[in-house]
């Protein structure tokens, strides 16, 4: 199957999914207890303001009509404006997203640097103390509550040792060195969790390839063990690991909510939390919609990567 056809098929499946996602996100505002217009008008319940809001957000129309109006705007790139400061939500998103992307890249680098070597070594040394230790560390990375790990790292590196700033963010174009020092701790926090996932999957994939016939053949030809592990087994084990990496990257983009909160990093997650606290529902809907869109997109990318990396799929 050619690549274009494969992508077209996957996208065709995505359209109904994304439609339902948008319906779910639209329905969120119907969960608001009582009258949405009253909730939006704030504490005073000024009848004039309530009526204005009701007309502005078409709350006097039936729900399907409201959805159609909302969706029409979303498709034209209009996600409404923040109730708090009247800035368009898309503008806010455009400002916050690069910060979160930088954090996600930093976390991913740490995860790959730890997770993949640990997975390869522990598979090659299966059943040894090294394997058991690596598994235990990976499980710890998966189990530790990240916001607590963040607090503990702040306590150690910022409060006790004073090596790194406790919180805040400096954009890379202002001061690259300070940017890296502000992004390091949160990247470690997020990276450890992903490293655990990567390690376990790399180990599993390696165990499978190490048991394959072509590895046995290589060993029978007395290819050095180092080469067997790194060339024959590792290269083939990388296919599922790459796919997983793309999916995990999508999770990082939306999974940084608490980490950004703790380190006061003005990204996507902090925008969501601020939106929640300011009862700024357009912002909340915007963040959820965009994070779902990104997640779907990265999953599609993972599928395409898998397709490209696996010649057997192209034949069928």
């Amino acid at each position, binding site marked *: 199957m050619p690549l274009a056809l494969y992508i077209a098929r996957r996208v065709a499946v995505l359209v*109904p*999914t*994304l*439609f*339902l*996602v948008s*319906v*779910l*996100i639209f329905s*969120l*505002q119907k*969960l*608001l*207890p009582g009258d949405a217009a009253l909730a939006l008008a704030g504490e005073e319940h000024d009848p004039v303001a309530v009526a204005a809001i009701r007309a502005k957000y078409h709350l006097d129309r039936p729900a399907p009509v409201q959805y159609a109006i909302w969706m029409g705007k979303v498709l034209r790139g209009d996600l409404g404006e923040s109730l708090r400061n009247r800035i368009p939500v898309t503008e806010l998103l455009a400002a916050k997203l690069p910060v979160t992307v930088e954090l996600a890249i930093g976390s991913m680098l740490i995860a790959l640097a730890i997770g993949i070597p640990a997975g390869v070594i522990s598979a090659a040394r299966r059943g040894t103390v090294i394997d058991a230790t690596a598994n235990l560390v990976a*499980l*710890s990375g*998966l*189990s*530790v*509550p990240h*916001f*607590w*790990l963040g*607090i*503990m790292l*702040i*306590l150690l590196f910022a*409060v006790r040792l004073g090596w790194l700033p406790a919180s805040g963010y400096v954009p890379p174009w202002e001061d690259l060195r300070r940017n890296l020092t502000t992004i390091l701790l949160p990247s470690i926090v997020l990276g450890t969790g992903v490293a655990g*996932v990567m390690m376990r999957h790399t180990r599993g994939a390696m165990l499978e390839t190490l048991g394959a016939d072509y590895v046995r053949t290589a060993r029978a030809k007395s290819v050095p063990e180092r080469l067997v592990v790194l060339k024959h087994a590792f290269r083939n084990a990388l296919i599922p690991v790459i796919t997983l990496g793309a*999916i*995990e990257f*999508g*999770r990082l983009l*939306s*999974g940084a*909510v*608490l980490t950004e*909160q*703790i380190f006061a990093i003005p990204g996507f997650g902090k925008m*969501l*939390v601020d*939106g*929640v*606290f300011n009862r700024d*529902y357009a912002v*909340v809907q915007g*963040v*959820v919609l965009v*994070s*779902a869109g990104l*997640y*779907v997109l990265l999953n599609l990318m993972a599928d395409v990567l898998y397709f490209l990396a696996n010649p057997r799929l192209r034949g069928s």
Partner: protein
Amino acid sequence: MSDAAAVTDAIVAPTRRPHLVRRVLRRPVALTATLVVVAFVVIALGAPYWAPYDPIKTDYRAIRKAPSAVHLLGTDEVGRDVLSRLIWGARASLLAGAVPVTIALLVSLPLGLLSGCAGGWLDGLIMRVTDAMLAIPFLIVAIALAAFLGPSLINAMLAIGIAALPTFLRLARGTALALTTEEFVVSAQALGCSRLRVAVRHVLPNMLPPLLIQSSLTVAAAIIAEASLSFLGLGQQPPAPSWGSMLNAAQRYLSQAPWIALYPGLMIFIVVMALNVVGDGLRDALDPRVR
């Protein structure tokens, strides 16, 4: 939730039940983890009995006291005993672990069975909605739902349950679908069992092992999610204790009173790790390919 795919693979072949518990407990690591989980449940259930102080009673003469013989784990920013709050906080975590998983199981078992056995447009509809829910990341769903429902422990549990639902539904439906092609199900149909009887007596019991594994892993994820929501102020409301909300308060006094931050997170870490080990142990014991 990332283990869902692995769980789907954990297959559905009939297992000899009496040996399951023994198989899990034979491994020393799994045994230790099980004991930790049991201890956690006992501590949570017997909170009034174990706690040395009233967890919400403030004492302005004992603000931010370091751990000592009087207050074993110190006191917090309004003089409440940290140990007592930890013990009572276990209740919020236990509830947050159990209730969402129960919701997810109660919804996904019948719906998954229906979807997997009946097929057709109903299956298509259920699966498309599941896909849509899976497209929104777990914690984002939970935060958005909790925000729109309003902050309380009950709403947080409801939000976590709904967020966990699509993974369960997909697993239940996939398992049911795989089972319908198994020989013992086909032979039951050939013997003239009604569709309902086949579904309830033959398919349903065999759906349980993979859902059991998923449940133990989801209890762990739900405990972290509750702590996260409470940390953000969307879960347990003050002054009632929860490990997540204790961490929120603790962050403000990090340099003066680090012990307030240390213990709640450590408790979450230990309990979640134990639950994950139990989940892994269950998977190893139930998956015929690993055995």
